């Protein structure tokens, strides 16, 4: 498999499933995965903004949260169905604070500048920066 390295260049990588993503052979994958996730979050926010009539900031967060109660219940059921202690890992906070905390942790702790910038841009759209 080919991964994108820190400079955006393709690097070869081997990261068997189950290997912690912070172990040395998996750093390139971590960067690629988190970059991809931030890209898709941004695209999903574009779609949400369009669906909410162009709303941004707290209005966008409010629209998403208003649309969510049924989704939270379904996710909780599913997590419960998966069973075991790990089901506790699913964070059931409202979507607004959850998104803001996830993106803020990237801005605060992520060493890669490109990821930090992408997270900051999404946070700004949510009115949290």
């Amino acid at each position, binding site marked *: 498999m080919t991964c994108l390295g820190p400079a955006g260049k393709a690097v070869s990588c081997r*990261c068997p499933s189950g290997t912690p993503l912070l172990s040395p052979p*998996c750093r390139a994958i971590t960067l690629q995965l*988190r970059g991809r*996730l931030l890209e*898709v979050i941004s695209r999903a926010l574009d779609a949400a903004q369009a*669906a909410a009539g162009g709303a941004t900031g707290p209005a966008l967060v409010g629209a*998403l949260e208003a649309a*969510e109660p049924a989704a939270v219940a379904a996710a909780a059921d599913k997590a419960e169905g*998966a*069973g075991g202690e790990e089901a506790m890992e699913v964070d059931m906070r409202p979507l607004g604070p959850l998104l803001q905390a996830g993106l803020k942790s990237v801005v605060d702790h992520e060493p890669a500048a490109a990821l930090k910038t992408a997270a900051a841009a999404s946070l700004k759209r949510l009115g949290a920066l």
Partner: protein
Amino acid sequence: MHAEELSALVAGGLRASAWGRKKACAEALAAMATAAGESLCPHAPGLAAVLVPEATAGRLWDGKEALLAALGALCCACSGALAADPGVPQLVAALLAAAGRRKTVYRAAALRALKQLLDALGDAAAKGAPVTGADAAYAEVAPPLLAAVEAHVTAPPAKPAGSGGNGSSTSERAGEGDDGLPPPMPLAESLGCLAAAWRIAPLAVRAESGAALFGALGSVLVRPGTPWASWLAAAGAADEVLKASAGLGGGGAQLQWLAPLLRGLVHALTHSTVSQVGRRLDWVRDDMSRARR
């Protein structure tokens, strides 16, 4: 220039009784389809008439997946010709049936071929030349593929794998044949096919099916213990679905669909660091206590 002669030779080889000859001809056909592209299309229906039953029916043998790869390459090069004969519903049904069989590499190859077909149909639709029968493809592929995703999501969480693997989900490896039931179709390939089929789904079908698809993508991302490769596959599929929905005449996405997807995305974003750091610290702590003893 010699497409007719080559096609006849390859078709003859695909009918051969020796598996090695079938496989070699399938590899040759895949190379021909990639190199010749549309110039092979007049011969595509004749080749498909041999290849579809050879690839998807009969007993499984080592290397049979090469026939599926050849079918995928042919679909990619000549989707229009194949839509006329044998037809999109026939191709989709044959590939889905192959994807439901027991051997993991074979099932994955069938879904890769299906994705190539769906991608080719999506590309044709994007160029304003929709192919007959393509608009019914989502309704055909979604039920079995969503069921496969659901089966992966509700499977018991993965145990950390100490050995090998290249990112396939645990439920692809576990239970294969030991309970008498076929294992679910491979997760990453199923998600890829769903996203490719979404590109050609009519607006009315999207409006009806969006909640199920976005919910499935979110549930893969939010599932505890999901391997990184499955996260990456789900993120890629979500990206493709969002792009198709945002395009001109794409119909957009409803807020109710987006909420579970965003929850899944942020879960994967958080857990690709914090939980990994936690696990790393646990390992260090274990090592230290072992060293003390």
